[in-house]
């Protein structure tokens, strides 16, 4: 294990967890709204935002799957050391981290069951940038309409059709986070 895997946790976990959660909750409750989230210093190429989400949400009860450029020994060790989460295959993951391309196909993730729609995966999608422009979002949490730079629209439209089942998404870059729950309707 490299030393890098042992560093970069929250300096003051109770406070930073709380602040990070409020950013994540605000993002998810208001799809399209871009929030600041920071505190973690994860190994590259994991962003500060994704690292902070992982520290705040993951533990031994939440299997995590890694894909694409994030499937490295250092990132794996960092997550295991700081959270105790197991690294698993996508079908068993509660949280999945990757780029939009590396996470495909989305059908490999759990979407919940009719009786327990909450037993579904949350995807943390690392992006190059996040901007309040592009796809138009409507639905719960959005007053009229919101805009967010999404990697595509079709997959999110298909995901919304599964409601109340489906996947929920966090998009991260740098210290920014935005979110798209299954309830959001996405248009061009």
């Amino acid at each position, binding site marked *: 294990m490299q030393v890098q895997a042992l560093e970069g946790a929250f300096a003051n*976990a*109770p*406070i930073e*967890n*709380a*602040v990070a*959660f*409020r950013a*994540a*909750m*605000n993002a*998810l*409750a*208001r799809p399209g709204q871009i929030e600041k989230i920071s505190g973690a210093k994860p190994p590259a190429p994991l962003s500060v935002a994704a690292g902070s989400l992982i520290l*705040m*949400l*993951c*533990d031994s*009860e*939440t299997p995590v799957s890694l894909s694409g450029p994030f499937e490295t020994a250092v990132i794996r060790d960092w997550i295991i050391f700081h959270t105790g989460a197991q690294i698993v295959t996508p079908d068993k993951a509660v949280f999945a981290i990757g780029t939009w391309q590396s996470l495909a196909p989305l059908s490999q993730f759990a979407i919940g*069951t*009719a*009786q*327990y*729609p*909450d037993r*579904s995966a*949350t995807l943390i999608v690392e992006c190059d940038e996040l901007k309040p422009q592009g796809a138009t979002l409507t639905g*719960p*949490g*959005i*007053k009229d309409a919101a805009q967010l730079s999404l990697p595509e629209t079709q997959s999110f439209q298909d995901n919304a059709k599964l*409601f*109340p089942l489906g996947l*929920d998404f966090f998009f991260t870059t740098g210290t920014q986070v935005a979110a798209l*729950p*299954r*309830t959001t309707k996405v248009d061009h």
Partner: protein
Amino acid sequence: MTDYNFAYLDEQTKRMIRRAILKGLAIPGYQVPFASREMPMPYGWGTGGVQVSAATLTPDDTLKVIDQGADDTTNAVSIRKFFEVTAGVTTTENTTEASVIQTRHRIPEAELRDDQILVYQVPIPEPLRFLEPRETETRKMHALEEYGLMHVKLYEDISQHGAIATSYAYPVKVEGRYVMDPSPIPKFDNPKLEMSAIQLFGAGREQRIYALPPYTKVESLDFEDYPFEATKADHACDMCGAENSYLDEVIMDDQGSRMFVCSDTDFCAGRQQAGHLGALAAVNAEDAA
């Protein structure tokens, strides 16, 4: 420095609650099971709300706690003190100053903003529980969207009483999908469930968390010929004169004389300070003098 972890609960527990809150927001109206903890207060005193608040608070928050609209009842005072000690947060009785408001059975009269969070204490989160006692069955009913029984209940209200007699914990349908218990708020408050603040519901004994993101569509169940009505006592507040607030009826003596006062104490006090006086306000001032 306090002897407790920030906001009392350990980090592992708060993480578990936070994950449940996020799934709750993603599936509005669906009750997410969570591993509710023992809290240093009895079940029925808001252990669910307290756990949700503990997972939500940051040190910069200003907390307000109300019990049936009042800031000064035992339940509200003790929960406020609990978080003053364990989280070191500022507390307030002023609705507009608060960033997190924990409530038992009321929505404040003042319209909430998008930077505020309303946390409800919920006794029985399952709206179908009194119609079907088995959790295995109600879970299936939610999965199948089988809500006919609830309409039968409201219909029986009409056939027996001539109107829908359910006056609190009035069932709502969220985004056209889940039927949800809005906690025992008076049905007067139901229209306010569509608001710009985040609403979180915590049921400690029943181990459920659910949520409403801002601007979520919340419809009170009704019939075309018996539409939903947000009712209140047909009276003005005797202290502040407000005609549009939810009122408590207070028995004054053995002869049965009574007065009506706003259940939202902050709203009522604010109006009185602004010079609005109700029918019995003068009498009350004399008594105090």
